[in-house]
């Protein structure tokens, strides 16, 4: 049963930050509640106050701004599925969002809420690392941009300060001759392994100019795997394809996979390799 709590409804980021600063660990930001309220109903966490940030305007838009796609933290997964800006510039994120959890979660769950709750079996964090996204965190008098790969600290932990609010996500518009793919494997709605690949070809489309690889869901937090990228970057597409098994095992080891009822550590590491190969091929085919 959900215990009693007080609902604060601020209308600006400054007010949200002030409330967070004032009430500390007894308060929590409420952005969609699909995960937070479940945990509260189970009695796993208790907060005296929830700070509903859905009254803060301007945080639920997707737009193009200075060569980047800016996604408001309060955009629901469903909004992202339908966004014309994303469909045109980043269709791989639309595909990911179409497959997040279930229709009820997608209707109310927000991208910002998903990232801040930092549940290990979530898709967006892994994807955002591969596409070089930055996360915008604001508090009363300041604003900073955090690279997606530095945002997650551990399971259920981010680098946000106690009075900081995630207000948006900035993703560079993919360059010409580039491709992005996110693939996951799991049981029903719960991904056990997720792999994202974003690559750009150069040399007339014959070699891998830039590549970013991220793995998630298998371990405590998503992780960018630069060691695996180094095995493919600058290589001809044929040579990179040959190096995929090695890159897969490097990425598998980096995933910090945890054995559980959904598979052993070794099994998940193997799946990382399989998904990396497929995601690479899918991204390549888009170039």
């Amino acid at each position, binding site marked *: 049963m959900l215990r009693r709590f007080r609902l604060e409804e601020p209308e600006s980021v400054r007010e949200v930050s002030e409330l967070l600063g004032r009430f500390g660990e007894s308060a*929590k930001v409420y952005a969609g509640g699909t995960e937070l309220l479940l*945990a509260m109903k*189970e*009695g*796993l*966490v*208790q907060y005296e106050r929830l700070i509903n940030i859905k009254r803060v305007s301007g945080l639920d838009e997707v737009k193009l701004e200075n060569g980047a796609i800016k996604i408001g933290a309060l955009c629901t997964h469903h909004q992202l599925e339908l966004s014309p800006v994303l469909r045109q510039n980043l269709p791989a994120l639309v595909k990911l969002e179409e497959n997040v959890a279930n229709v009820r979660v997608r209707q109310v769950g927000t991208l910002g809420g998903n990232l801040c709750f*930092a549940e*290990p079996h979530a898709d967006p964090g892994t994807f955002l690392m591969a596409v070089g996204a930055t996360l915008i965190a604001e508090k009363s008098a300041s604003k900073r941009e955090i690279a997606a790969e530095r945002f997650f600290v*551990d*399971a*259920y*932990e981010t680098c946000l300060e106690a009075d900081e609010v995630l207000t948006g996500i900035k993703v560079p518009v993919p360059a010409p001759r580039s491709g992005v793919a996110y693939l996951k494997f799991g049981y029903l709605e719960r991904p056990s392994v997720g792999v994202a690949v974003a690559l750009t070809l150069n040399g007339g489309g014959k070699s891998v100019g830039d590549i970013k690889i991220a793995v998630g869901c298998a371990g*405590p937090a998503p992780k960018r795997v630069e060691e695996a990228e180094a095995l493919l970057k600058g290589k001809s597409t044929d040579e990179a394809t040959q190096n995929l098994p090695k890159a897969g095992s490097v990425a598998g080891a980096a995933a910090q996979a*945890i*054995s*559980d*009822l959904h598979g052993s550590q070794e099994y998940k590491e193997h799946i990382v390799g399989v998904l990396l190969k497929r995601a690479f091929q899918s991204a390549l085919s888009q170039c």
Partner: protein
Amino acid sequence: MEFQKEIEIHAPKEKVWNFIWDVDQFIACVPGCKEAKTLEEGKRYSATMVEKVGPFRVEFPTTIEVLEREDLTRIKAQASGADNKVGSRMKIGLDVHLREQDNKTMLSFVASVDILGKLAALGHGIIKRKADQVLDEFAQSVKKRLEGDS
């Protein structure tokens, strides 16, 4: 969940053995453990275990019972506690062995940890990882304390 660890300590076996039985020193090595009390010397102890994974926090008032003891060699103990606020229980079976090897002491322990109740909703993997971290920190802390003042 089963965990096994072995710590190589550059200290004589007697010193390690005495350290284990010094409740205050020993408890100081267990991350999140506080308010340790001796209920019955050499047999029953109590302490409170506080652990945190992100926003999830549990507090287990715990009773530790020494089941078997072979001086300077082995201790078998059992700890159990419940967090009624979160609705979870914890049970730990612990087998500790000491052996001497080239002027060092090898302290090995096997722990079987059971977490029951709502906390299990966090998932086996996350709980196992947390327990692993606690045991690693404990092992390093014991080694540091015993070697630090040898």
